[in-house]
């Protein structure tokens, strides 16, 4: 995006202005000296990371509809998009999702079922058992450490992760 700040009057009257004086300020409206408004400093993220539907080798991608991805990609210095499928060319008129042009994308990664254990609406459901297992493990450092060993550190790659969690046939079928 490249804008240094944005006007966001909704913060007026909240204590966020007092607690975060470096990020939010009340300024005079440059177009009307009778009015004051709240401005928020731009975030300028170093990296944006998304999971999307399709990508091509040049970096064009198709992501979920109605999301914030394009805005976040424009605002970020580097952008990584993992996708379910690599195609010859992503068509910007493809109605399966919303298009982000390659100029806003640094890296495209083929990661089928890459959102697991969360879901991708239309392609595969969330894996409720695995998410409940995550929640249960999150109770202590020790139990979450065991979870990480099992699903992250003892697994060398995304492919090995998919083998570990044993894809259900219907998942594989829908995800192509």
């Amino acid at each position, binding site marked *: 995006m490249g804008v240094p700040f944005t006007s966001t009057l909704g913060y007026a009257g909240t204590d966020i202005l007092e607690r975060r004086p470096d990020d939010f300020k009340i300024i005079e409206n440059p177009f009307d000296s009778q009015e004051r408004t709240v401005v928020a400093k731009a975030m300028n993220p170093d990296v944006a*990371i998304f999971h999307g539907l399709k990508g091509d*080798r040049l970096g064009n991608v198709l992501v979920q509809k109605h999301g914030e991805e394009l805005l976040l990609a424009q605002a970020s210095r580097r952008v990584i998009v993992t996708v379910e499928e690599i195609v010859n060319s992503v068509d910007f008129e493809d109605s399966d999702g919303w298009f982000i042009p390659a100029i806003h994308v640094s890296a495209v990664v083929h990661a089928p079922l*890459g959102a697991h254990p969360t879901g991708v609406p239309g392609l595969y459901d969330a894996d409720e058992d695995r998410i409940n297992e995550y929640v249960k493990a999150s109770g202590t450092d020790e139990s979450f450490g065991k979870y990480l060993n099992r699903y992250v550190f003892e697994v060398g790659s995304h492919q090995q992760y998919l083998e570990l969690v044993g894809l259900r046939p219907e998942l594989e079928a829908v995800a192509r």
Partner: protein
Amino acid sequence: MREKLVSVEQAAQIVKDGDHIVFNGSMDWTPMAMLRELARREIRGITALGVVGGAMNLDFLLGAGVADQVETCSLGFGEYARVAPNYERLQKQGRMRMLDNT
């Protein structure tokens, strides 16, 4: 035109210790394959931003020790938990920083 198709491992090299990383706010579409690789590479000191809101994306990075600060307007966990569970534990123990931009 530059070839941008890379492996999970190559893409992870784009992320450096201390970076601010932004995610979308959904429990669906979480880029977990990429996040597991960041944990494997032991990236540290990340500030994770959730727009709008956060879920497993921010919670996983906190639980794996990759992120020590998050900024978002809410940190839920779909229908699975009232509050993102690693966030809840680490916040109550004062081991991380949360910036509220409700």
